[in-house]
């Protein structure tokens, strides 16, 4: 892997390998010393053209646990017309000797352009580009699902590790319902490609206005009713996407009340889910809109695991991109 630009490019074996390496990284987090020397002397730049404190600190923690030097470069508001261009920024980072660039950008495809431009030699990690993809989010979601289903590493009080059976596993036979603004969601796109590559059956649920044209070419089922999806799919996983209230003004739906009533995961719908099913959310949540407080805080909810797993998965990605080939852990 030279860059991580999209989950579309990942084969099943590659994806499973990333998740397995992430298991090793999760083990590190349970040690007394939570740090590996692997990326000592390497420089990782978090280049954020868009605010996202959560994603940035997750990457920052991941890089630091691998002993990399981390530079945070917030270039919000930059564009060709006002301020510094992506090209100028990239060339600056190249001159500074960046080995890896974690890029968050409001323009779809910006990481592709950076990776193919020749402006910079560094490995590029897509940390969310416009309405295109957010591959590390999908990887951490897949990791979270796999761990819940098959168990990760458990550590007993004497420090001995007892490995679960997650390693090497795919998601064959797992049913996932993704609910919300599919049209504008990079999380949904990355999850569709990754989860289906891993063998999961994915159903997208949204108002018809928030389903992209041409969805029939995606390897998914589409359903306009959350109630119907819950009752017919009997999902193992319900993934709720954040809905943005400003979509109302563009007539995607009448108002948040109606949206919540029809497409929100309220208490009644949560109660109809199978007992061992999972409720996921990439955060930040609009409690009471797309997800009820009870659903978000229930034992089904993986929200906090997702945050913790995010660091492990991002460590795995940085490790695989930046550590020399063939180096073990």
């Amino acid at each position, binding site marked *: 892997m030279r860059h991580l630009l999209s989950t*579309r490019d990942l084969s099943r074996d590659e994806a499973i390998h990333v998740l397995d390496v992430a298991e090793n990284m999760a083990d590190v987090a349970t040690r007394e010393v939570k740090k590996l020397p692997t990326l000592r002397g390497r420089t990782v730049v978090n280049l954020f053209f868009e605010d996202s404190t959560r994603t940035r600190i997750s990457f920052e923690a991941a890089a630091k646990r691998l002993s990399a030097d981390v530079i945070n470069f917030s270039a919000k508001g930059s*564009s*060709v*017309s006002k301020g510094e*261009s*992506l*090209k100028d920024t990239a060339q600056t980072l190249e001159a500074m000797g960046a080995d890896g660039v974690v890029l968050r*950008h*409001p*323009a*779809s*495809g*910006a990481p*592709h*352009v950076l990776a*193919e*431009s020749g402006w910079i030699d560094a490995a590029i990690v897509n940390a969310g*580009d*416009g*309405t*295109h*993809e957010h591959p590390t989010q999908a990887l951490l979601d897949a990791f979270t699902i796999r761990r819940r289903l098959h168990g990760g590493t458990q550590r007993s009080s004497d420090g001995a590790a007892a490995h679960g059976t997650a390693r090497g596993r795919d998601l064959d036979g797992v049913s996932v319902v993704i609910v919300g603004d599919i*049209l504008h969601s*990079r999380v949904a*796109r990355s999850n569709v490609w990754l989860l289906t590559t891993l063998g999961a059956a994915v159903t997208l649920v949204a108002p018809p206005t928030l389903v*992209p*044209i*041409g*969805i*029939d*070419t*995606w390897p998914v089922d589409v359903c306009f009713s959350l109630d119907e999806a819950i009752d017919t799919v009997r999902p193992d996983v319900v993934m709720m996407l954040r809905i943005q209230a400003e979509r109302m003004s*563009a007539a995607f739906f009448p108002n948040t009340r109606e949206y919540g009533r029809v497409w929100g995961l309220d208490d009644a719908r949560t109660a109809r889910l199978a007992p061992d099913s999972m409720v996921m959310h990439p955060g930040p949540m609009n409690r009471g809109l797309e997800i009820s407080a009870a659903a978000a805080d229930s034992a089904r909810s993986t929200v906090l695991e997702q945050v913790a797993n995010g660091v492990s998965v991002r460590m795995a990605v940085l490790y695989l991109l930046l550590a020399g080939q063939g180096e073990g852990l």
Partner: protein
Amino acid sequence: MSAHEHDYVIRGASLVDGERTDIRIADGRIAELGTALSAAGATAIDADGLLALPGLVDLHVHLREPGFEQSETVLTGTRAAAAGGFTAVFAMANTSPVADTAGVVEQVEALGRRAGYATVRPIGAVSVGLAGERLAELGAMATSRAGVRVFSDDGHCVSDALLMRRALEYVKSFDGVIAQHAQEPRLTIGASMNESALSGELGIPGWPAVAEESIIARDVLLAEHVGSRLHICHVSTAGSVEVLRWAKARGIDVTAEVTPHHLLLTEDLVAGYDARYKVNPPLRSSEDVLALRAGLADGTIDIVATDHAPHPAEAKDCEWGAAAFGMVGLESALSVVQAAVVDSGQLDWADVARVLSYTPARIGRLSGHGVPLAVGAPANLALYDPTASRPFDVSRLAGKGTNSPYLDRTLPGSVRATFHRGYPTVLNATPLAEETVSASAEHADRAAGTRGTE
């Protein structure tokens, strides 16, 4: 100096009907056709194996001057035109200031006259400042020295139905035409590629075909209602071709153009987020491309126009979302048309003369251009070698813009020479120096008894 100093004899060219002939050019006109013409006192040009086409006429270019001279000037844009075999171009109004007054259109016309690479006919804005609210001074532009007959807010759609109706009606008094950039603005907010399965996958806001087709449908009905002449810019979808076919069958006075790039390129090219392929209207599906070719072949689409849209390098050397829309097209137009519809057998060279010369001149009410090569006709012509096939590279670009989607693509054909008003603007496939061309233009003006420009 001999009296024939400015005469040329072109040896052994083929006309579009296949007839082989020599061509004597004297006093700005085609003086003689036939075999074994005497070249005494004239400059002989070997055109063995070359096609002699009437000088091409482009109804849709962006020359960027005044206001955006870092992208293109009238001089550099018309030099690109000459390199592509064009002898006349219609310059769109989205300059700064906008070409919405007699003063601006006269300035653009004069810049073209002075540069001499091609005849420049300014297009006047339909609305003041292209704002789509109030009619610009259409009459003043029509009666100005620029003699404007084509009006367009290109870049913007005249989306207000009432303003469009009034514009269509108003230009009847001077035989004008409204050239509509058909794009329903509300359906295309933020849109930058064809709306399709691919746009959904790439996460790029989609520009749906219906945004073009619905405006064309509305406007052909408006043109029918008020009995006016309507032209549709850069038709890009199969549905638009259907609407136009219906309108023409109904007798509505509508003409339409297609760009070379919409005849050859498809949306798949956008998958790598390479901003050279960002253009408005966007590249469409292969089904659309095939429908456009068929529409051009059966006359539903009347002409090919380039929508030549030069930009500085930094406007394309960036992420997709920040990049400017548009491609340069003048230098590559003939080669792309050959690749898309001539080599496939859908158009012959006589058709090419029709869609790239005769008909655009007629739509724009431009005299002296777009007429068959015949004795007495103005000597506007291009010599084209249709056999050469080679990679298209920056050396073929003669304007300021390098935002061509064809760089490193192999294209057939090459323009070897262009004559404008009897003097060469391109020889040996290379545009002549600007001093040479402007001196020739001045000489042609004097010879024609017209007042040279100040």
